């Protein structure tokens, strides 16, 4: 059975590193893995998505179908809502309680919408993660992405994979311990 994970966020939030670590772990666990990213103009504050699909059998398409994501992890609050049509019935949403206003909002043409979490809850099993506060507790705001990765690992029951080794192979030595702690915290928060 193919599992589908959708990571969404805003350019610069570290979704690409999180999805890279995730796919490497899934590969190590001998799953067939396909991953697809759209990041064309995202360097300029656009919306970014990573589709990750894995299975014990062959995975063909790297792109998740609408209504098929087992879990959506949103690094930014409004992005969760933007891609909610991808969530399957009974799927889970982990949403970072973190706002990045886009240009229409900073320029005063629109306001950052209120009540997003309530909207998500109407449709989906939603867990709110205060990833920025949690990251500060761990000691570096930049590990927000690894906390959110931890929530995927926890909710998809992937904790048996040796994430520590993958981190040590893909993250600068001085940040390995920090990232390990962040993933552990994310796993706890997902439960």
């Amino acid at each position, binding site marked *: 059975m193919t599992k589908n994970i959708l990571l969404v966020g*805003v350019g610069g939030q570290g979704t690409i590193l999180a999805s890279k670590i995730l*796919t*490497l772990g899934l*590969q190590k666990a001998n799953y*067939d*893995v*396909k*991953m*697809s*990213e*759209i*990041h*064309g*103009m*995202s*360097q*300029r*504050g*656009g*919306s970014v998505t990573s589709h990750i699909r894995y299975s014990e059998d062959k995975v*063909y*398409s*790297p*792109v998740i*179908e*609408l*209504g*098929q994501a087992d879990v959506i992890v949103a690094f930014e609050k*409004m*992005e969760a*809502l*933007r891609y*909610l*049509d991808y*969530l399957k019935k009974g799927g889970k949403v982990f949403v970072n309680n973190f706002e990045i*206003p*886009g*240009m*229409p*909002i*900073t*320029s*005063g*043409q*629109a306001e*950052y*919408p209120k*009540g*997003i979490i309530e*909207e*998500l809850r*109407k*449709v*989906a099993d939603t867990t709110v993660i205060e990833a920025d506060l949690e990251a500060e507790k761990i000691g570096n705001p930049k590990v927000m992405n690894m906390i959110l990765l931890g929530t995927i690992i926890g909710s998809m029951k992937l904790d048996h994979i040796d994430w520590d080794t993958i981190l040590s192979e893909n993250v600068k030595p001085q940040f390995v311990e920090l990232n390990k702690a962040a993933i552990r915290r994310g796993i706890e928060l997902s439960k």
Partner: protein
Amino acid sequence: MSKQQLMTGNEAIARGVYEAGVRFAAAYPGTPSTEILENIASYKEISAQWSPNEKVALEVAYGASIGGARSFASMKHVGLNVAADPFFTIAYTGGNAGLVVVTADEPGQHSSQNEQDNRNYARHAKVPMLEPSDSTECKNMTKFAFELSEKYETPVLIRVTTRVCHSKSLVSLEERQDKPIVPYVKNAAKYVCVPANARVRRAEVEKRLDALKEYSENCEWNVIEDNGSGIGVIASGMAINYAKEVFGKDADYLKLGFTFPLPLKKIESFVKKHSKVYVIEENDEYIEDAVKMAGGRDVCFGKYAPDGSRFLPAFGELTSDVIRRVVTGKAVPAASFDRSKVIGRPPALCAGCPHRGFFFELGKRKDVIVSGDIGCYTLGFASPYNAMDCNCCMGASVSGANGIQKALDMVEGNTKRVIGVLGDSTFFHSGMTSLLDIVYNKGNAITVILDNRITGMTGHQQNPGTGFTAQGEETTVVDIEGIVKALGIKNIRIIDPNDLKLVRETLDWAISLKEPSVIITRYPCVLKKMSYYDKNEWPDAYKNKCKVDTDKCIGCKACLRSGCPAISVKDKKAVIDGTMCVGCTVCKQICPKAAIN
């Protein structure tokens, strides 16, 4: 077992180039193809270069092939338009050592100005074509393409799409083949394309195509998967993966990887065995036309149904959900939530972008038409600047401005002035000849070269102006002002685009002239890793931050007109996000109350 690695399609093509023993590669950056050459450049065994444009990239690769090195060129779909001239004639001559060209198409236009299907180029130029569907095939087909190129004395086209380029799957790594330089032997009858020679080669091309047609019928890339079904699916590239998700084991498949020339006999026999045949392909009905030609008109469901009505969408990506919706007639029910809570997130110029100051001033002008170009600065069209009237393709800003100005001036008493705006890399790509045209044909348009010292939009590739090659070697720093002078422009000013007063005065100056002028705005991209040239010229760049003096701020929102993502207004006071601000001071210069320091 050999070592396996998760790779994007682009990384896998680069790996294939390496393993095939390629010695020379050239490209011009363009989404979604850019990372192919970036990855090739990391192999020290290969001489890899960013060329000024795709035509040059293909020609220099062709030259290297004549010289005896296995050679490679890659580009985005519209890049092959630029390189089409050599492409069509190289098809006649072939090279000496293998020559392979990659075109990266963009169904869905994630980052492009059009959605052209470059499979048509293979048929048009009579060049054999391969279409990989995943990273493993990207690597294997690239290696195979070089064998094919040498065996049939032809360039080979590999067509990929965004999802093939930017998706990851597992690839087995192999050793690099040793491919020594093939000795060059003079052969004017082959390489000198005068009509007498080219007519002979034209006949050779047909012979080659006949041989390739036979090859296509039996090759390992065009395969049938028989699941004992009455329904058949024919697809190529990423579309075969989308189709397999939808039809699973309930259909037979004809998977096409070698797609020019198509295996018509194989298609015909596959069609005959099935009562219904779905043709799944993104962009044009390229395979569908062949299926209909091979007797499938009455059973074929592709872009059109047998009765001629629309079946699959004409454009956009044909992801599994799109196919499923059309084939089953059932859409996934949309989740019910308040969609007004989702506000758009359009791309914007970065905080500190040196284009901001220029477009802020340009957008205030009512007496000008702005002809734009391809790059980050295309965002000058958007709110709050609204400072662009048109854009088309690389270099067209300058030539387009020339034409618009000429037409406007046909009306007596015209006072409207036309400004062509393009970046440094785009100027090198195809702006230079357009500027030459202005000078030679007595045009009067204004040209602005936004020189941010790098190729920005595609993620910071070196270009002739930066002083470094694709492989990080030092090279001549090409002087834009020197080129502009040499082309015959007499009125040139180089300015700091963050100085709004200076931008204003310089625009006034250019507009007042009765002859063509060039303004060069010179300041490094905020995201650029500064070279020592940059550090020397701009020692203080991006080292400061602006702050709002809340006592002085009256909440007038004038600063929001800068369009800077770092600035917003909360509780009637401007707020600058200290993590984003780099102190360009554009907002400070706009503020009427001197409330920003």
